[in-house]
């Protein structure tokens, strides 16, 4: 079920109340209270995930079993060779599942097209399970961390299965680490008023970004992409910008709702976005965008390949590998691979010039220009990301440049632009002012009294309902 759906609006309070009142308070003197609470969360998570299609549950259970079993085996043996074998089994099996469901058809079709063959006899007619990339990587990180000795293999299947299937972050991240999340399932959770309030603030902020901004941008972007060959260049420029806004608000909005929902249940998930469009360079952008995925690739691919310890050439090569894999992770299409390579090419000069640090201070005028340039470079990359094919991406850019003065200039209903402009002003103001805190909507920088904050939150809710789009548009990252 989607976070912005009626079903979830009913599901969440029911699960919340049962979790704290029945499995929290009523069973508080029961020695198995924690296990019952985790079991309830596991059941709720499976209901949440199975709501799309109950068949998806088979795969997630298999992934959980493989990772849990292999980690137990790693934990039981002292021989490095056997540990490696069990780790290899976990990695191969999990990647095979991911490969078959996500990449098999892509590689087979590409191979057939290369040879001029008809691929219809070779492709599999299977559905891509929602969130498979996310929970597979989460399971893999557990196996690898057990092997590395960072965490002990858990003998408790309930807490582990719940860690994999935990519904707030199951289908679109953040990709959690066992070292952070698994211990939280193994210790008693106490209700915290401040955590619950912050959770609600995050959920509200996420819904604002998704329903009001992302879905409105999506309406326009989808319309223009469907007929881009006949649009004026300025229309296509606006389309590119609006897609950059759409994907940020869609994805970070989901992460906000996920983090906020987890906070309601007493869990702390890792941050996934830190105002990425305020980055001074691409290196900083990749430390602020989809942080959980990028750190995953750094910890489990980049560093094992040697990281930056083996000289500049090797560092550059490793960087290309990371971005290539990151592109491929996003989807089975050459556009994602190209997008990854594009970012690698932007990143490499920064390695050479040794300009990969993250800035914390308020930007100077020069840095503001750097922020603008970085944003433009990122927007250009999103064109390839959004395009259905490389040919479409090329034609989009071609039309954008060649048709800049041709055809009718862009027309957007003035009400739409007015609403979007106000929403974007609110977005960037709140996120900039709240950049140093964990929740932008806490509005701590403004030092407002509680009643004033309540008025602001009420105004935000009213804006969402007045200007938001409620036709169901799935979160973009669900397809990954």
């Amino acid at each position, binding site marked *: 079920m989607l976070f912005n759906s009626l079903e979830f609006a009913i599901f969440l309070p029911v699960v919340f109340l049962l979790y704290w009142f029945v499995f929290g308070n009523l069973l508080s003197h029961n020695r198995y209270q924690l296990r019952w609470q985790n079991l309830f969360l596991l059941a709720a998570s499976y209901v949440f995930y199975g709501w799309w299609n109950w068949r998806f549950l088979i795969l997630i259970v298999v992934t959980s079993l493989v990772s849990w079993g292999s980690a137990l085996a790693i934990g039981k043996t002292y021989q490095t060779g056997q540990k490696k074998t069990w780790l290899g089994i976990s990695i191969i099996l999990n990647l095979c599942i991911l490969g078959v469901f996500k990449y098999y058809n892509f590689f087979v079709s590409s191979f057939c097209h290369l040879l001029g063959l008809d691929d219809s006899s070779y492709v599999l007619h299977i559905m891509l399970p929602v969130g498979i990339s996310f929970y597979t990587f989460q399971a893999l990180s557990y196996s690898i961390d057990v092997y590395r000795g960072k965490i002990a293999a858990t003998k408790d299947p309930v807490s582990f299965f719940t860690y994999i299937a935990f519904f707030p972050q199951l289908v679109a991240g953040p990709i959690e680490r066992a070292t952070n999340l698994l211990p939280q399932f193994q210790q008693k959770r106490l209700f915290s008023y401040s955590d619950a309030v912050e959770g609600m603030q995050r959920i509200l902020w996420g819904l604002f970004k998704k329903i009001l901004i992302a879905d409105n941008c999506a309406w326009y972007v989808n319309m223009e992409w469907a007929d881009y060959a006949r649009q004026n260049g300025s229309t296509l420029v606006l389309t590119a910008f609006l897609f950059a806004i759409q994907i940020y608000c869609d994805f970070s909005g989901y992460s906000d709702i996920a983090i906020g929902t987890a906070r309601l249940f007493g869990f702390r998930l890792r941050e996934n976005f830190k105002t990425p469009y305020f980055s001074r360079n691409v290196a900083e952008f990749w430390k602020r965008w989809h942080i959980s995925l990028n750190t995953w690739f750094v910890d489990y691919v980049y560093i094992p390949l040697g990281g930056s310890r083996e000289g500049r050439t090797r560092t550059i090569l490793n960087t290309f590998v990371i971005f290539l894999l990151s592109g491929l992770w996003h989807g089975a299409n050459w556009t994602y691979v190209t997008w990854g390579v594009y970012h690698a090419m932007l990143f490499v000069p920064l390695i050479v010039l040794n300009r990969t640090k993250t800035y914390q201070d308020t930007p100077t005028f020069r840095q503001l220009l750097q922020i603008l340039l970085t944003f433009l470079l990122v927007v250009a990359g999103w064109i390839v990301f959004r395009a259905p094919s490389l040919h479409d991406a090329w034609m989009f850019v071609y039309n954008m440049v060649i048709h800049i003065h041709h055809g009718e200039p862009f027309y957007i209903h003035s009400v739409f632009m007015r609403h979007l402009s106000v929403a974007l002003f609110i977005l960037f103001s709140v996120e900039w002012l709240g950049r140093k805190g964990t929740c932008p909507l806490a509005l701590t920088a403004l030092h407002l009294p509680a009643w004033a904050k309540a008025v602001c939150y*009420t105004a935000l*809710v*009213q804006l969402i*309902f007045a200007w938001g789009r409620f036709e169901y548009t799935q979160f973009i990252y669900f397809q990954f």
Partner: protein
Amino acid sequence: MKKFLIYTVTFVCINMLLIYAQDTYTYYTGAYRDHVAGAEIYQAKQAAKQKKKVKKLLIGDSVCRQMYGVGQVGDSIWSLACNQAVTMAGHYCLIHDFITTNKDSLPQEIILSFDCKSFANNLDKYTFQYFLKPFPDKEYQPLLTNRHLLEREKLIPYRRAANMPVIRCNSWAPEYELPQEQYTLLSPVSSDYLDSICVLAKSAGLQLHMFCNPVRESRQQTFVDIYQKALNTAETQKHQTLWEEWYQSATYLPDSLFHDFVHFNKQHIPENPYLLK
């Protein structure tokens, strides 16, 4: 926990009241019709309730709407074209509204303009937004008693919520899929309501004509095959003249004029292809 629940429930209640007030305001002023999904259907509904002395009444899907728009066309045509998603039942409601409003000065002809795919609609995932909400039970229940229609409607979740003002004045609709069957040309709902349109036209003394939207050349063979297969079925035999007119009126245009399967590019929309006067 108690403090959190009290504050949250209070916050939610205040906001629900404000939303209800806002929606009630937009509902009763009619302002919602311009910005909800399916705004073109509300425009067609409004046009159907206007007193207009015209010779021809035009009903059609979104392609017809591209070609003729909504409202006055030339001197003597009034168009109620909207979207095939309203189903043939919705088109029947629009015709009924116009005839009821203009019973003192009826048009001479009703012209139907549809692509072959429009007849295959037997209610689908768009029905909640494009049919149930614009045509609520309170207003249209006497016209929507068809057995096939009611059986299919039962499969749509939260269908009764489509009658609530707070749901009607925004674009919310549940996500669902109805089991789809393949039809040669006419779905049961389309067949039944085409019959109803014919009966309505006859009882009002109006001529009924049916034209086919221009077809893209790459679909020509498929279009011909569909028609040939449907030719001797009971549904088409009932209105043989109408179907023959529909088939004969089809024109085949180059694919380059089309933006998708059926719709024209903005710059290639033909003007008055049926040469209506």
